[in-house]
């Protein structure tokens, strides 16, 4: 049986057009490729030391 109050908590206010800019800036764009490159560079630095 669905509980209305509980289900209602799952709905969040939608972003308005004015807030789009902030949402774009706050988006974390780090991907696996970034992590890989970072790890490789760190390991290279360690081996050089």
């Amino acid at each position, binding site marked *: 049986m669905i509980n209305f109050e509980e289900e209602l908590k799952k709905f969040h206010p939608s972003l308005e*057009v004015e807030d*789009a800019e902030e949402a774009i800036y706050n988006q974390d764009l780090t*991907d696996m*490729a970034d992590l890989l490159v970072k790890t490789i560079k760190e390991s290279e630095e360690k081996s050089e030391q």
Partner: protein
Amino acid sequence: MFCYNCGCHLSEHDFCTACGVDVSLYKKIMHISNMFYNEGLEKAGVRDLTGAINSLRQSLKFNKNNIEARNLLGLVYFEMGEVVAALSEWVISKNLRAEKNIADDYINMIQSNASRLDSINQTIKKYNQALLYCNQDSRDLAVIQLKKVLSLNPKFVRAHQLLALLYMDSEQWEKAERELTKCKNIDCNNTQTLRYLQEVEQMLAPEEAVRQPGKRKKEDTVRYQSDNEVIIQPLSVRENKNSAVSTLLNIGLGLIIGLVAMYFLAVPAAEDAAANEAKKPLIELGNQLDVKTANIKELETQIAKLQTQNENLNSELQGYVGTDGTLSTIDTLLVVAADYIESGDIYKAAEKLEVIAQNINIDATSEAFQKLYNTLLGSIGPELSQTYFRTGAEAFRTEDYATAIENYLKAVYYDAANADALYELGNTYRRSEDSANAIITYDKVIELFPDTDWARKSKRYRDDLAGGSN
């Protein structure tokens, strides 16, 4: 695919042919990203939008530069009515690849139409307001607001789901089912939609189960849907068989009711028609009377106007006509002429001519009158003009400019060819610091007596005054 280290194009080898760095892991990551993109594309193709979003997000987690995946993600968001999320993805995509990017077209499509953008914003605001109403327990208002949202953006899945939830809460299962079906048509594999739908079907199923079992009790109603309404039509209601007596009784009752209705409706109408017919000649006479009264009033107004005009003309004529019936002004002029011929007193004649000029408009008088008046004025004018000129000059010397102006004006009046008087009048105005009149007078001197010493002097003074006033 390009090397993450030097940016060169990668070959089929597991190392970069330009810088020699190992790219095997990097290549795998790119392949996984592409794999998720393909999966997302397939899911979007069968309208599993939620699944497509998940796959495309995964794809972007592996490779944020997967422009196709990002653009498709934006498109899927847009299809679900999440316009701001879609715009965000397209803007990021455009920033990652500025040239040859379809995201540019998508953004332009939305931004170029100001009314559409405004409508999108209104939809979002209304949805947020509806959510607020839900949290404030104003569910009726929330339903109204959500209906508005969906009329503006029928593909807004979240709004459909919230509306379905509200219907479910108020146990309007059919309506909830309709909303959820619409959700399913947009996004066929949305977990939340499917969960709600399951609940709704469970609530609707027992009713079906009771109706369909082996007993097969005949249904007493027929349900069918017309537009948005469910029509329930009873089947078991049957008319009782009437006996012949009751039929006759009903017919008789109908006749009585008909007669009574006719008495109350038709008879008064017929009476009104007859009365109206009788009144017709009276109305016609009344109309004729009105027309004649209007004519009389108009004629009376005309008479009053003519009487006023007549009185005015009579009073005007009284001004001209003397006691013996002759026109007094003509009489006066004749007397002036006779006196002047007899005595030769130009001052007396001038005084009387001034009185005549004050009382009547000389230009409006007869030709003979004007001729006599002008002859008299021409006879006495030059001499009189010289007299006034001398008096004016005397006043000018004593710096009594007001008197000087008065006398010079008379000198010019009695002899328009008296250039000296006109020039001195200008000088007097100038000395009394009346630049406007001085300039006008100097202009007259220049115009009437060109190529004279007066004109040259007048021009010099005039230019000085004009320069000073500027």
